[in-house]
C-alpha cells in the first residue's frame, strides 16, 4: 500500500513537473494506434504525458473555436483539413508556427502543402498528408489509363451496358468537379493578389470558364449518356466496390474499401476534356497538425507536433493507413507504393482548396449551379452561371 502510494506520488510529481498535453484526433483504427504509439514514444523521450482523445471529425472545428479561449480544448489537433485554417486563424485559436520551424524542414515539404497551410502570409500549422480526387480505374476493364478524352469516351461507352457502367462519379458535388473548371481556364476559385494571398473579390469559376465547365458536366449526362440521374457518391462508390464500374473519380479515402473488395485498381489523372485550355487538375486538400494558441504547455505541444510530421514518422503513418505524405523525403521512401506513386503524379496538377473563410459562401451556390445544369437537358447554362456569380458576389460583398 505504502509503495503504491509512493509510486503514485512519484508519478504525480513527475506529471506535474513535465506537464501533460491533450491531443484531439479524428483518426480511427490503425491510424489511431499509430498516434498512440507516437504519444508513448514521446512520453518516453520527453517525460511529457500525452492524452489522446477521439473527437468526431465534424465536431472538431466548432468545439475547438468555442472551447480554446475557455481553456477547454486540446493542446493540439491531429489533424485538420487546410480549408478550416482561415476560419480557425481568424477566430484566434491557432498558434502561428513560423517561429518554431527551420528552413530545412520547410524545404522538405511540397510547396503546395506550405501554401495550403499559410494564411495571411503566416504558416498556421504543420502539413502532414494530402489528398485529391483522381481517375481510379478497374484494371479488369481498363488495361491502360486513357491518355486522351477520345480514348476515355471510347472506354466509358464500351462498358456502359445493362449490368456494368463505364464511368460514374459524384456529379452534383463541386469538390469532385473542380478539375473541369480548372481545365477550362479557372486557375482556382479565387485569383491571387500581388502578394500571393487569395482575393475573395475576384472569382474565377464564373464567366466563360464556368460556362464551358458546366456545359461539359451537363454533356457527361445528356450528350455522352455516361452519368444518369440518381448517381451520387454512394451509388458510384458502391458500383466500383461491386466491380460493376470501370472508372470513377474518387480519392485516397476510398481506396481501403476497394482493396478490401479485392478490386485491382490503378490511379491516373483525368484526360483533358475536349476544347479545354489546360490539363484537368483537382482540388488539393492538405491535412496537418495545429497547436492551440491558448495552450498552457505550448513548447511540449509544438515539439510533439514536429515529431509527428517528421519524414520518418510520416512513412510509418502511411504504412498504418495509406495516406499520402507531403514530405518529399517520405514520398521518396515510399515511391514503390502504387498509390503514393499514382497520386504524386496527380498532385502537381492540382490547386489547393482555398483556405479563406469566404470559400464557405461559394460551396452552396456552386453546388446549386451544378445541380441545376444537370437537372434538365434544356437547362440554360449561361443564366445559371450568371446567377451563381451574382449570388456569391452578393454574399461575399456584404
Amino acid at each position, binding site marked *: 500500500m505504502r509503495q503504491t502510494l509512493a509510486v503514485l506520488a512519484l508519478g504525480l510529481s513527475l506529471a506535474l513537473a513535465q506537464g501533460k498535453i491533450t491531443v484531439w484526433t479524428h483518426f480511427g483504427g490503425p491510424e489511431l494506434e499509430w498516434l498512440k504509439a507516437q504519444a508513448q514514444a514521446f512520453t518516453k523521450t520527453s517525460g511529457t504525458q500525452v492524452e489522446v482523445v477521439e473527437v468526431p471529425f465534424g465536431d472538431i472545428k*466548432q468545439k475547438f*473555436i468555442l472551447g480554446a*479561449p475557455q481553456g477547454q480544448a486540446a493542446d493540439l489537433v491531429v489533424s485538420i483539413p487546410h480549408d478550416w485554417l*482561415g*476560419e480557425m*486563424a*481568424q*477566430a*484566434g*485559436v*491557432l*498558434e*502561428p508556427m513560423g517561429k518554431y520551424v527551420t528552413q530545412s524542414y520547410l524545404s522538405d515539404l511540397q510547396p503546395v502543402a506550405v501554401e495550403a497551410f499559410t*494564411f*495571411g502570409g*503566416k504558416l*498556421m500549422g504543420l502539413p502532414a498528408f494530402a489528398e485529391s480526387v483522381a481517375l481510379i480505374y478497374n484494371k479488369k476493364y481498363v488495361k491502360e489509363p486513357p491518355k486522351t478524352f477520345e480514348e476515355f469516351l471510347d472506354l466509358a461507352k464500351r462498358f456502359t451496358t445493362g449490368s456494368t457502367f463505364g464511368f460514374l462519379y459524384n456529379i452534383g458535388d463541386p469538390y469532385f468537379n473542380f478539375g473541369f473548371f480548372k481545365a477550362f481556364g479557372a486557375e482556382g476559385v479565387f485569383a491571387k493578389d500581388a502578394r500571393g494571398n487569395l482575393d475573395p473579390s475576384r472569382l474565377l469559376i464564373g464567366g466563360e470558364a464556368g460556362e464551358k465547365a458546366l456545359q461539359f458536366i451537363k454533356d457527361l449526362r445528356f450528350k455522352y449518356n455516361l452519368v*444518369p*440521374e*440518381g*448517381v*451520387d457518391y*454512394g*451509388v458510384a462508390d458502391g458500383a466500383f466496390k461491386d466491380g460493376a464500374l470501370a472508372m470513377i473519380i474518387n480519392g485516397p479515402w476510398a481506396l481501403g474499401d476497394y482493396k478490401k473488395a479485392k478490386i485491382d485498381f490503378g490511379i491516373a489523372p483525368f484526360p483533358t476534356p475536349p476544347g479545354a485550355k489546360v490539363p484537368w487538375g483537382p482540388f488539393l486538400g492538405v491535412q496537418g497538425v495545429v497547436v492551440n*494558441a491558448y495552450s498552457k504547455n505550448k513548447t511540449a505541444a509544438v515539439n510533439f507536433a514536429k515529431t509527428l510530421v517528421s519524414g520518418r514518422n510520416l512513412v510509418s503513418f502511411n504504412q498504418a493507413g495509406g495516406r499520402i505524405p507531403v514530405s518529399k523525403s517520405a514520398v521518396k521512401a515510399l515511391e514503390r507504393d502504387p498509390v503514393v506513386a499514382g497520386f504524386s503524379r496527380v498532385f502537381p496538377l492540382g490547386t489547393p482548396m482555398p483556405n479563406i*473563410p*469566404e470559400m*464557405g*459562401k461559394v*460551396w*452552396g*451556390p456552386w*453546388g*446549386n*449551379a451544378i*445541380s*441545376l445544369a444537370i*437537372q434538365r437537358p434544356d437547362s440554360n447554362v449561361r*443564366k*445559371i452561371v450568371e*446567377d451563381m456569380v451574382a*449570388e456569391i458576389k452578393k*454574399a461575399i460583398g*456584404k
Partner: protein
Amino acid sequence: MRHPPGLKGFLLALGLLLGLLLLSTGAGLLAYFLLEVYLAPPGWTILGVALLVLLPGAVALGRRFPWLTDWYYFLPALSFLLVFTLYPVGLTLYLAFTDYSGKRNGFPDRSTETRVVGQEGPRLLLEAPVREALRCDPCQGETVEVYAEGHRLRARIAQAEGAALLLDRVPPFRAGYVAKVNAFRFVGLRNFAFILSQASQALLPVFLWNVLFAASTVLLNALLGLVLGLILNNKGLKLRNFYRTVLIVSWALPGVITVQVWVALLNYNFGAINRLLGVLGVYPIPWLNDPDWAKVAILLVNLWLGFPYMMTATLGALSTIPDELYEAAKVDGATPWQALFGITLPLLEKPMAPILLSSFAYNFNNFYIIYLLTGGGPAQEGRLATAQSTDILISWAYKTAFSAEGQSAYGLGAAISLLIFAITVAISLVNFRVTGALREVR
C-alpha cells in the same frame, strides 16, 4: 405574515426568488472579475461566491417573509430554468442585433500576430507597418490584444503611423506580440434587413411551402390515422392487436435511420420504388430530382412516419366514447354510416383538435425530415442556394447561419430564429382563436 393570495403572491414570490438568484450570480461574477486582476482564479470561484451570497440571503429573506421558505423547494428548478432556458433565449435576442460570427467572436485574430520590437509607454514599435500587419484600414479605434508569456491586455488603437502604434493605455508588462481583435458590434436591424432583402428569393416562397407542408402533412396523416383507427376500433376485426403492432412499426423505428433508407428507395435510377414502377410499366419518377416531385416525396415519407401517431391518438379518443350511445342509435334504427357521422366524428373533434394543432406546430419546424430526405433540394432556378425547392424556414435558417454566411453566422441565425418564433406564435394564435382549442384545453 401570511402568504399574499392569488396571482399577486405568486408573482411576488417568483420576483423575490429570481432577484435572489440574480443578485448572487452578479456577486459571483463581480468577485471573479475583481480577483482576475491580481491572480487567475478558477472558474468555480463564481459558483462559490454566489453560494456564499445565496445561502445567507435565503436565510435573511426567510426571516423577513416567513411564508417564502416553502418556495425554496422551487430554487433548483428555477436556477436550471434560468441557465438552460432563459439565458439562451436572452442570448438569442441579444445576438440577433449583432454581427457575432465565427470570425467576429471577440477574440484576437492570430493570423495578424506581429512582433513588438520597441516599447515606450503606450507607444509600441512593430516589426512591420501597422496597416498591413494588422490588416486594418483605418486602424484608429480598432481593438487589439497585446500579450507576452503569461500576460494579456486589451487596448484600443489611438493612432497608427508606419510601424508605430499608439495605444490608449500603458501595458504593465513587456509586450511581446500584438494582434487585432475581431470585435463584434451592434448592427441594429441590419440582420433583419438582410433577411427581408431576400424575401422574394427566399423568405416568401419558403414560407408558402412551409405552411403548405405543415398543413398537408397534418391533414394527410390525420385522415389516414382516422381511417385506420376506425377500422382497428371495430371489435369484430380478427387479429386486431397484430395489425395495430405492425402499423405502429414505422413510428417505433428511429426516423434518422428510416429517412435515409427512404433516400435510397426513392433514388431515380437505382431505387427500389422506381424499379418496381418499371416492372409495372410506369416511367421512373424523379422523386428527389424534380422540385415538384420532391415535395410529393416529402409528404409521402412524412405520412409514413407520422400516421401511427394519429392512429394511436384516434384509438385513444375513440375509447372515451361510451358504447351506450351506439346502442341507443341502433335502437333508434340508425345505419352504421349515420352513427359514424352523427356520433363518432363530432365526438372525436374536441379531443383531436389540440393534437392536430400541436402536430401542425411541430411539423412547421420539422427540420430533420427535410434535412435528411432532400437536404432542401433539388435546386430550383431563381432561388438562393440556401433556400431550395423543399427548404422550410428552419432549414433555411440552419443553412444560412451554419453553411453559407461564413459558416457560423450566429447573429444572422439568431435573427432568423426570432422571425420564425414570431411566425409560429402568430399562426398558433390564429389557430387557437379560430378553433377555440385554448378554451377546451383549459
